[in-house]
């Protein structure tokens, strides 16, 4: 009886989460790949060019991940361990790149590196987008690590470096593994960056899937490449699972106020490094801001004034401001859907006792990050039409698709906290007579609340900037800001281009406001978080 009472909610939550995922992810993807598998997939797999594609995709993603980790770690250190003025500002600045439309960032990097930008520009642009993931994930855990372990190592004669590599780094592994896997997935599937900076010459699996599906209608080719991409993604996720496996529950956590202090000695070098990274992040941002006030005859605010209009000869169907409102609304919908799904999924994952099952489910929940938006979007065409109410053209589809991207991030942030909650607290509550819901309300909710808010904030920001899925599904009368920006850049006319850059600035402002609001709401974190 008691067993039933515990299992029923878990089963119900699992049905909701995997029902949604099955309907809006697994079925469409399986359907479109299945359609392709009827053709001649073998030839594509046998071509040497296919394997060069795989090599380049994995290589650039690995390089981007390495750069993002290297650049993100000093930032994470400063954000978590040091008390310096402007830390809040730093946190906000680090997040902004994540929402910028890829086409715009691609063009900014193209302007910086010249037309033959090449591999270096792709790697740096991918890293630029993802430094936020590393900085936020790692600093979340770092700020709770007990300094005394490191101090003990130092007093036993270990150098600062030795203490870091043998004590701190292993403790950070779960967060590093999480961050690295997410960054790797984002970099391996980044589409706009490769298209703009690769100039049609450098190709990844993702851009090739896009070309074969969207332009050539070569479904067998696209299916073969999608399967390869899927295999690569699963491999990356497995590595991350192994990296996270050991320490998710076994940490001695401290309040951040105990672990942060004023920088001393060699720490100033880290601060300087973080400053360099920050400058690197700010360069494209400032370039964009300058571009938004440039006119043919010097500086001007024509682009910003134009936000109230619809572009040259009405390029957009709505004004720039309305597009911003659409963005906020859609992202809000995507956020609550992703929160609901992510929390239910975390609840299921914590409740599942068998590690293999839990890890398999976890991996399945991460897959939407690694599958091409084109594959999902084209899958919708052949599956959702057979459902009642023809969802293919519903305005709900955009938040649905965005929620697919945001949900894995919510899980990655919330799950470690739920896992870190001492089971003995729950047992104590149960012994005192609390039912399972009461336990959840009294123990889990208060402990996880702030992390959930942080996840909501970051998820909102991700949804705001999401372009791939959105551009496939957004309706013309309700474009989001990134969709509107791409549309404006696709038309001649000075006003259109100024308006596009002003809209970018607006997107940044909305993002900054969102991040600041969330930071205010959650105050000083006292729970572990991964982002």
């Amino acid at each position, binding site marked *: 009886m008691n067993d039933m009472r515990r299992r029923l909610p878990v089963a119900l939550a699992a049905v909701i989460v995997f029902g949604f995922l099955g309907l809006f992810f697994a079925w469409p993807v399986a359907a479109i790949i299945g359609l392709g598998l009827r053709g001649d997939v073998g030839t594509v797999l046998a071509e040497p060019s296919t394997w060069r594609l795989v090599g380049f995709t994995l290589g650039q993603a690995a390089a981007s991940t390495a750069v993002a980790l290297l650049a993100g770690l000093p930032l994470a250190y400063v954000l978590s361990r040091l008390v310096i003025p402007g830390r809040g500002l730093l946190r906000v600045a680090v997040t902004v790149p994540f929402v910028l439309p890829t086409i715009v960032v691609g063009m900014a990097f193209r*302007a910086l590196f010249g037309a033959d930008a090449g591999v270096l520009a792709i790697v740096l642009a991918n890293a630029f987008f993802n430094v936020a993931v590393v900085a936020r994930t790692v600093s979340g855990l770092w700020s709770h690590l007990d300094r005394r372990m490191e101090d003990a190592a130092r007093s036993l004669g270990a150098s600062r470096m030795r203490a870091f590599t043998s004590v701190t780094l292993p403790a950070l592994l779960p967060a590093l593994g999480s961050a690295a896997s997410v960054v790797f997935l984002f970099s391996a599937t980044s589409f706009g960056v490769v*298209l703009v900076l690769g100039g049609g010459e450098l190709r990844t699996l993702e851009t090739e899937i896009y070309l074969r599906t969207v332009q050539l209608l070569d479904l067998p080719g696209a299916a073969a490449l999608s399967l390869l991409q899927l295999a690569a993604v699963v491999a990356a996720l497995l590595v991350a699972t192994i990296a996270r496996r050991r320490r998710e529950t076994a940490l001695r956590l401290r309040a951040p106020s105990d672990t942060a202090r004023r920088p001393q000695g060699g720490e100033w070098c880290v601060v300087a490094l973080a400053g360099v990274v920050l400058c690197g992040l700010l360069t494209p941002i400032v370039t964009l801001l300058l571009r938004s006030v440039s006119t043919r005859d010097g500086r001007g605010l024509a682009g910003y004034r134009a936000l109230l209009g619809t572009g040259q000869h009405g390029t957009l169907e709505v004004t720039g401001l309305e597009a911003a409102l659409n963005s906020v609304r859609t992202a809000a919908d995507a956020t609550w859907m992703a929160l609901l799904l992510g929390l239910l999924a975390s609840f299921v994952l914590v409740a599942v006792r068998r590690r293999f099952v839990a890890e398999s489910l976890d991996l399945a929940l991460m897959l939407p990050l690694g599958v091409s938006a084109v594959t999902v979007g084209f899958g919708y065409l052949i599956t959702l039409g057979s459902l009642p109410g023809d969802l293919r053209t519903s305005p709900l589809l955009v938040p649905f698709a965005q929620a697919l991207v945001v949900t894995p991030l919510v899980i990655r942030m919330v799950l470690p906290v739920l896992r870190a909650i001492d089971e003995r607290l729950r047992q104590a509550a149960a012994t005192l007579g609390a039912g399972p819901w009461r336990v959840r309300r009294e123990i889990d909710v208060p402990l996880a609340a702030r992390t959930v808010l942080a996840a909501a904030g970051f998820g909102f920001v991700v949804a705001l900037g999401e372009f791939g899925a959105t551009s496939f599904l957004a309706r013309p009368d309700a474009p989001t800001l990134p969709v509107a920006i791409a549309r404006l850049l696709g038309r001649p006319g000075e006003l259109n281009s100024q308006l596009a850059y002003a809209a970018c600035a607006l997107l940044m402002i909305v993002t900054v406001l969102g991040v600041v609001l969330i930071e205010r709401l959650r105050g000083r974190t006292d729970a572990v978080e991964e982002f």
Partner: protein
Amino acid sequence: MNRYLRWGAALAVASLATGCSLIGSPDPDSAARTVTLVAHDSFVADPAVLADFERRSGIKLEVRNSGDAGELTNKLALSQAAPLGDVAYGVDSTFASRALREDVFAPYRPAAADRGPQRYAQDQQHRLTAIDVADVCLNVDTGWFARHGTPEPRTLRDLTDPRYRDLVALPDPTTSSPGLAFLLGTVAAFGEPGWQDYWRELTANGVTLSSGWEEAYSQEFSGSTGQGPRPIVLSYASSPAAEVDENGKPRTRALLDTCYRQVEYAGVLAGAKDPQAAGEVVDFLLSPEFQAQMPEQMYVYPAVDGVALPPGWATSAPLPQQPTELPAAEVERNRDRWVEQWRTLVRG
């Protein structure tokens, strides 16, 4: 207490934000006949003209943008069993054959087809009706050539002249639809295998390739806002109309002897819910009101004869008289092979 306050605030924000989006779009006149027009991303129309049509016809027009011409065609082909809408607009002459082969469209012949569109007809059954014409042409920055005392190029052949070395920006034919049109234009102009020799010389003369029209036009081209380094770019015959100075004089010019013609079509989708209303929408796309506002809205030329162009277009963006063209069926048959040959030739 504070904690509950925060949760309350978060909940309030969330419910407010979602309240206006999920419940915010009621459909007051769902009783009226609704026609869904699936269109390419460039579809924009004067709201007043659309509203006027809805009032007169009693048809509520829902527009859904669905990617560029190629993407739109492929989406229509994939969803053919359960069509995405009732009418489609934006399948162009490059992709028309694919749409016809996949039986995406039902026959419909509007009365106005005889006043111009008929000359672009693709098949005997009238499944596609030409709505507009858009020519892909090289554009030049006239000021740059005046300042440098260099004569402007005139033909495709001129681009291989050392005088125009490192001056040309093109979008990649494999990733961009105007880029593909330009490749087809070179096939039409030089034939096989002449086009390959032409591209060899063109590449040797230092053209720069970008993945999309956006980068070529707004970053490489000196005549647009980006004020890039190159004074020759691939764009449309109509683009100069968007590049006028304070005195209304265009800063750029399309080279009318370098153009490749793309015709954009509309048709009633096979399996449309209300084929009759769908036909009325095709009629509307050919109506004088709709045709007249197309140039300013979409930078294309009307397919119907005798529709006046906006003031200034006659000088800034005249319609090319002798653009090159390839039959849709030939494009469909050879497109992939040409693109592959081009890739090997230029990318190595």
